[in-house]
């Protein structure tokens, strides 16, 4: 697709907006529709768009396969770790009231961390899935 002028220019123009929009959705999940799941999928879609236009090899240089694997694990760990922190502070698992002095503030913090974990996890996993399929194709055709 890199050789097609229209697709290359338009994709290059739109990808930063898609990424910024993904972050917007991630951090405004409290006020408007959205949240970690949606933001993760949008972020992955932005990078997949890059991979479609410039090839998976170029995309590996931006976000390596290893990074998506680590990211997927880190996402789940942030989620689970939030629960462990509330355990350590003497409350039940994933009980955010204990995260801060004020229960409502604690809830805000807990929701923020959990959504962050979900966002990182979903974005990495979706990208990982895409990478798995396309790199398998490249490897099978002997073009890697």
């Amino acid at each position, binding site marked *: 697709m890199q050789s097609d002028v229209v697709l290359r220019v338009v994709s290059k123009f739109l990808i930063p907006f898609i990424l910024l929009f993904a972050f917007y959705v991630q951090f405004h999940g409290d006020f408007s529709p959205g949240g970690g799941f949606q933001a993760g999928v949008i972020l992955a879609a932005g990078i*997949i768009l890059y991979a479609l236009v410039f090839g998976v090899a170029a995309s590996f240089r931006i976000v390596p396969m290893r990074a998506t694997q680590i990211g997927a694990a880190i996402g789940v760990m942030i989620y689970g770790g939030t629960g462990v922190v509330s355990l350590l502070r003497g409350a039940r698992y994933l009980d955010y009231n204990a995260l801060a002095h004020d229960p409502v503030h604690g809830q805000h913090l807990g929701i923020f961390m959990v959504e962050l974990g979900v966002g990182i996890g979903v974005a990495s996993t979706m990208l990982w899935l895409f990478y798995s399929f396309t790199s398998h194709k490249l490897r099978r055709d002997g073009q890697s």
Partner: protein
Amino acid sequence: MTDWLHLVLLIALVVVALDLARLRDLFAAAMLTGFFSLLCAVYYTIVDAVDVAFTEAAVGAGLSTVLMLGALSLLDERVETGRVRNRIGALSAALAVAAMMLYATPDMPAYGDPTSPVNQPDRPAWRYVHQSGKEIGVPNIVTSVLASYRGYDTLGETNVIFTAGLAVYALLAGVRRKRGQDAE
């Protein structure tokens, strides 16, 4: 006012599903899935499930088509399905299931009924709607239920997604090995 709208959308969904059952070209079927997802997103918006519509939009517009095509490209030229076999049996099984469920529908609450069992004050949803503003302090009730009230549930879902990624990687990343042939 939006009542007629959701009926029309549901009928359109059934039409698309029927066409999916008829199509034998896998590529065309994958494209029609995109149409299906668009209709669903509009439907979810109409029935106030904005967050669900958001997810469907993100997934349907960006991801599911790409993943489907990624898999189809690995199946080489095989984009036509074989013949449909056992049409009578399949039809009767589907109809039997449909008939059983139809038999149960008169006991269901009507569409949009505010007095349906799920909306009663002794149900969890009542607390979510009326208390979450005070308890959590987040305007989007869906977010507070997702991340706080039902946090275990979402933890499980996140794990499922992670496991799915792991499974796909395990299936596809290994050295290719054909039947009756050693590893390359």
